[in-house]
């Protein structure tokens, strides 16, 4: 990184064949990823999926076991963190406790001998509306203010790439909403490439223009938030981003525009372009809010899929909508969200109901049915806790 100069604009980030092994486990198996300049990119996944490791590889705080990292077309794999045009907003903010807010923000500028560091630091603090607290120490600020200082300290350097490691995790809900909007507007204002790591799907969807869903060290699906939500490719994505009703059956008929899947004797039609696989056993899904709850069996209509009858086993009211859970014999549980258009619930526990959805709303997944429970054992919290404990034990033994 040339000293005394800012990056002209955001830069592309390219990860080529990245693999990262730690003693005892592999964090990232094989990762190829391109993030275009100027975008707000979110890496979304459960804890332990390798997303933070990916971020640290880009920042240079970890070295990949294999593969290359390219920023703006330049190979930076061998460069040290301080030689990369990248800045990070850390999860814990990592503000220097012995420096004032102003000195914290000016730190990066001073290291690179950029003219007028204090003036530029004040400017960055004005951007996050904290200039009046410039002389305070970090521990005199609230969590939200510290987060904004951490952001200003990174943004002031105009890095080609700004990395955000769950920076909103420690904030309460209301503050988080506010910060999400602020982050988004700052990104639009300064036009840098933002790479945001989070496990909060709502945060990823509201802020990012491209989301990559990560699981077990691999990217399951990448695309615009709406695209991921409307057309998930795998069961993991279908359940990690919102909720889905999934049914598995055999393909019994294929036309040029649609496939027919037999689910326990019921024919379900899925448009071919919305199905990842067109033969054999496939899993089809539909979002709970796309379902209609019906008290009578509907007329047969080729543009609508119908399942039922089933019985409602749970009704829970949540203001704008009501969630119904019903069981359909042979098929299992189905969740339905209905907007509360009229007062009072549509149906009660024990009512006999049918569900229907437009053919256009269904989707077919790419998973092999056997692999469909992708929330597999080694990503749940109990396993992660166990791994942590083992790591701790081995460290204790060593000491």
């Amino acid at each position, binding site marked *: 990184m040339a000293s005394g100069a800012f990056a002209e604009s955001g830069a592309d980030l390219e990860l080529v064949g990245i693999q990262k092994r730690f003693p005892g486990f592999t964090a990232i198996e094989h990762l190829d990823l391109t993030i275009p300049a100027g975008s707000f990119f979110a890496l979304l996944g459960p804890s332990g999926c390798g997303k933070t490791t990916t971020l640290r590889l880009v*920042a*240079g705080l970890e070295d990949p076991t294999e593969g290359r990292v390219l920023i703006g077309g330049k190979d930076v794999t061998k460069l040290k963190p*301080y030689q990369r045009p990248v800045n990070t907003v850390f*999860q814990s903010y*990592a503000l220097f*406790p*012995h420096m004032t807010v102003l000195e914290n923000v000016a*730190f990066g500028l001073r290291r690179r001998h950029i003219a007028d560091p204090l003036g530029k630091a004040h400017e960055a603090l004005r951007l996050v509306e904290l200039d009046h607290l410039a002389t305070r120490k970090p521990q005199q600020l609230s969590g939200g203010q510290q987060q904004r200082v951490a952001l200003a300290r990174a943004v002031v350097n105009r890095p080609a790439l700004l990395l955000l490691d769950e920076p909103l995790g420690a904030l309460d809900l209301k503050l988080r909403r506010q910060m999400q909007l602020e982050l988004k507007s700052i990104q639009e204002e300064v036009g840098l490439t933002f790479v945001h790591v989070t496990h909060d799907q709502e945060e990823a969807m509201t802020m990012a223009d491209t989301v990559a869903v990560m699981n077990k060290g691999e990217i399951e699906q990448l695309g615009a938030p709406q695209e991921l939500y409307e057309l998930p490719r795998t069961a993991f994505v279908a359940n990690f981003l919102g909720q889905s009703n999934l049914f598995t059956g055999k393909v019994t008929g294929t036309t040029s525009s649609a496939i027919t899947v037999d689910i326990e004797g019921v024919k379900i039609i899925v448009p071919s372009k919305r199905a990842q696989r067109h033969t054999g056993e496939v899993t089809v899904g539909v979002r709970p809010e796309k379902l209609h709850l019906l008290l009578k069996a509907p007329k047969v209509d080729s543009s609508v899929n119908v399942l039922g009858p089933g019985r409602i086993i749970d009704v829970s009211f949540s203001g704008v909508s009501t969630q119904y859970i019903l069981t359909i014999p042979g098929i299992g549980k189905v969740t339905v969200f209905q907007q509360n258009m009229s007062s009072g619930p549509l149906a009660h526990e024990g009512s006999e109901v049918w569900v229907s959805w437009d053919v256009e709303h269904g989707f077919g997944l790419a998973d092999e049915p056997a692999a469909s429970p992708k929330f597999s054992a080694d990503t749940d919290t109990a396993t992660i806790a166990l791994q942590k404990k083992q790591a701790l034990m081995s460290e204790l033994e060593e000491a």
Partner: protein
Amino acid sequence: MISKLGFGKWALPLYAIIALTFLMIPIAYTFIFSFNDSLKTNIVWRGFTFNKWLDVCNQQEVCEAFGNSLIIGVTATVCATILGTMIAIALVRYRFRFRSAISLLLFLPMATPEVVLGAGLASEFLTAGVDKGMVTIIIAHTMFCVSFVVVTVKARVSTLDPALEEAGRDLYGSPNQVFWRITFPLLLPGIIAAALLSFALSFDDFIITYFNSGTTNTFPKYVYVSAARGIPAEANVIASAVFFLAIILVLISQVSSAIRRKRLEKVS
């Protein structure tokens, strides 16, 4: 019941007063007798004078021993603090072969009886053919001070969030800059505490010094040796001065931290 309460009310303060008096008598005695217009010995009160305070180096030996102790204390402290800080950082931050063995070995000088350490070192110097003197004392003191520095600084390093140093590197700080601008200032309170501790340990060490000093005199050694034929009042002057200096330093640090806390409260 009442009598029990009454007993509790006066017994504890009385006990405290007796204990404090018992502790203070030698110090008070030393201080008072630094004003004694004594001749060779300083046992009988012969009248009040400021002369001993104004002319401390009248008894050359006392001053020389005190000077030696200062030189040894400062040098050993500087060496032990630098070495100990580096060891502490390495032990907390890095994983390497023999790491746990080194942690264990560092505890040994604290656990071993001083007589054993002193005698062991003395025979070591003898075998190696090193003349005993100032240098051997400094080496000996550095050795046992390092352990205390490592323990003190290690506690500080392990509370330091590694993300702070990572943030420094991320913000274009070279390893050198990150150490001096982030790690070092944040460890400084621990390092200062360690340095004060090792100076105190070095300054009043007698046993290890006695084995390894040869003809070089230190203040504790001088006091011990001359106790047999009477300690001159100049020694009382130096002892009292050191005592009050320590008290003043403690007071200054307490007051300044109280002021700082009040200022923080006012701002927030």
